[in-house]
């Protein structure tokens, strides 16, 4: 099986095997073996939860270095709107966009504009198509992966339109090439990303073949340099063109607001999203039109690769949005964008089979029974010391052959006590008197 690419990975030397991340992983994708964390590739959804919680900063995200943009003669920066909320006291988006040009980019194209186009496309779909209810946002790749892994029966609810960053890159590249008369392969599009999930989605797109992006640079990486540029007085160029709704996609609820969907629900934080998806599976939310679920608390402003506290960033974005005209993307975006670009998915979103115990249902049932039997023999403390997140997970690992009974330290202790007792008994056994 080909190894799936993940942005999230472990810095081995920093990991102390403390099991903090083990407990927090929403797909039980982490094990601690031989004193170090391991990520089970097929289960990881790159949500960044482990990056946020690791006390030793051993979980990191692979992103592209700023220097990598020099691979291309022409470079376009595509900042996630989340970037706008990272700077205190910056009064206008143009300052930030101009700052990006000073980092070595030839052009900037706001992903917020991509969000405007996607908003319009979704509104169009909601109006004209019969769609499952509720429709689930595809904006957060961690949530789409979560659905593939844990809620495959909800896949057909997912929006089949590409993400704002992809749409932005398609438009940015074409417009830049036309305006400057250069071939497309000379132009590199770089997403300024709030999270590892987006990085992975660029490497392994979901729903379409190749990404239109050529790389992803984390907000954290450019934060220092960019804030220095912004603070230096400079003539600001007029670059911002998106609507306030496109900008609003950075915060939780921003997508619903952009869609002007009355009957919608926005949820941030992966555990909360999981609970809502459970309800959706039970058809308890079928009166809802739209569901925006994001892995991060507060939405992308809470992304693992951002600098600013998510609540402060959210407030900063709200302030930037306040003076902008109240223009709906539906009105602001020309319909030609919907016609002229490949906005819609060309590949199906496939369920992941990683949660199933075996290809063959009979064999899966046998394993399940074995797991239930083993679980009954385990103490049920869910302490994580064995390296599996719960006793039940250890039982599963044992049934699948990844772990053994003595990985449970409580079982081991019991066994040692028995052995000590036996040794004691042996030592007390009087010697057989020798025959005279």
């Amino acid at each position, binding site marked *: 099986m080909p190894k799936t690419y993940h942005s999230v990975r472990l810095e081995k030397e920093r990991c102390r095997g403390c099991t903090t991340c083990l407990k927090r992983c929403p797909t039980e994708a982490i094990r601690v073996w031989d004193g170090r964390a391991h990520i089970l590739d097929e289960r990881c959804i790159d949500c960044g939860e482990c990056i946020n919680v690791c006390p030793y900063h051993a979980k990191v995200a692979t992103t592209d270095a700023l220097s990598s943009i020099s691979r291309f003669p022409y470079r376009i920066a595509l900042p996630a709107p989340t970037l706008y909320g990272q700077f205190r006291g910056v009064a206008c988006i143009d300052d930030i966009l101009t700052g990006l040009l000073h980092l070595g980019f030839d052009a900037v194209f706001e992903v917020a504009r991509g969000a405007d186009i996607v908003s319009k496309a979704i509104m169009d779909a909601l109006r004209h198509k019969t769609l499952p209810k509720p429709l689930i946002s595809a904006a957060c790749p961690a949530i789409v992966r979560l659905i593939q892994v844990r809620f*495959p*029966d909800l896949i057909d609810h997912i929006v089949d339109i590409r993400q704002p960053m992809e749409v932005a890159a398609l438009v940015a590249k074409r417009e830049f090439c036309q305006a400057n008369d250069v071939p497309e392969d000379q132009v590199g599009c770089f997403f300024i990303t709030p999270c590892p999930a987006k990085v992975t989605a660029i490497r392994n797109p979901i729903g379409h073949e190749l990404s239109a992006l050529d790389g992803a640079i984390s907000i954290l990486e450019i934060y220092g340099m960019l804030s220095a540029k912004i603070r230096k007085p400079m003539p600001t160029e007029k670059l911002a063109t998106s609507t306030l709704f496109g900008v609003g996609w950075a915060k939780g609820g921003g997508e619903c607001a952009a869609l002007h969907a009355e009957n919608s629900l926005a949820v941030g934080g992966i555990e909360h999203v999981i609970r809502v998806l*459970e309800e959706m599976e*039970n058809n308890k939310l079928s009166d809802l039109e739209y569901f925006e679920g994001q892995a991060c608390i507060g939405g992308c402003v809470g992304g693992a690769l951002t600098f600013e506290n998510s609540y402060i960033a959210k407030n900063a974005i709200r302030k930037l949005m306040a003076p902008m005209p109240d223009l709906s993307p539906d009105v602001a975006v020309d319909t030609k964008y919907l016609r002229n670009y490949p906005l819609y998915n060309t590949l199906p979103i496939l369920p992941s089979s990683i949660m199933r115990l075996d290809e063959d*249902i009979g064999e899966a*049932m046998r394993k*399940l029974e074995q797991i239930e039997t083993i679980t009954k023999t385990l103490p049920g403390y869910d302490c994580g010391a064995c390296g599996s997140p719960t006793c039940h997970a250890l039982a599963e690992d044992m049934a699948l052959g990844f772990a053994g009974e003595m990985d449970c330290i409580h079982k081991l202790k019991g066994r040692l006590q028995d052995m000590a007792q036996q040794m004691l008994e042996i030592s007390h056994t009087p010697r057989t008197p020798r025959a005279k």
Partner: protein
Amino acid sequence: MSGIREVFPVEAGGFTTAGEASATIKQILKKLGVDAGVVRRVAVASYEVELNLIIHSLGGELLLHVDDHRVRITSQDRGPGIPDIDLAMREGYSTASEDARSLGFGAGMGLPNMKRNADQFAITSDPGVGTCIQMDFNI
């Protein structure tokens, strides 16, 4: 072959644990690799039947039985039973209390939805004794 059997006790009025039995059932089916569409139908039906035990019955249990060609959910309770099953099966018919309604239950769609989602649906009830519902889903 015997397959998987699990029993989930459900308490009357147990709102704090409402939905746990059906959530576990769902998880088991996913681990077994049961088709996503079937899982979805079982999820809907078993959630409804679990909530009916909590809201309308004096307590009972859900039984899950899976073999290689079907998923069977059986609900068995200790009363009070349903006096008129045809009436209870009607869309919108509900005897849910004000309390249950204020929690968002009592739309009277539970039984009709179970019937719609299951491939086979059977209900028997003895007033004073209890209600038994059996639902089969082909896999």
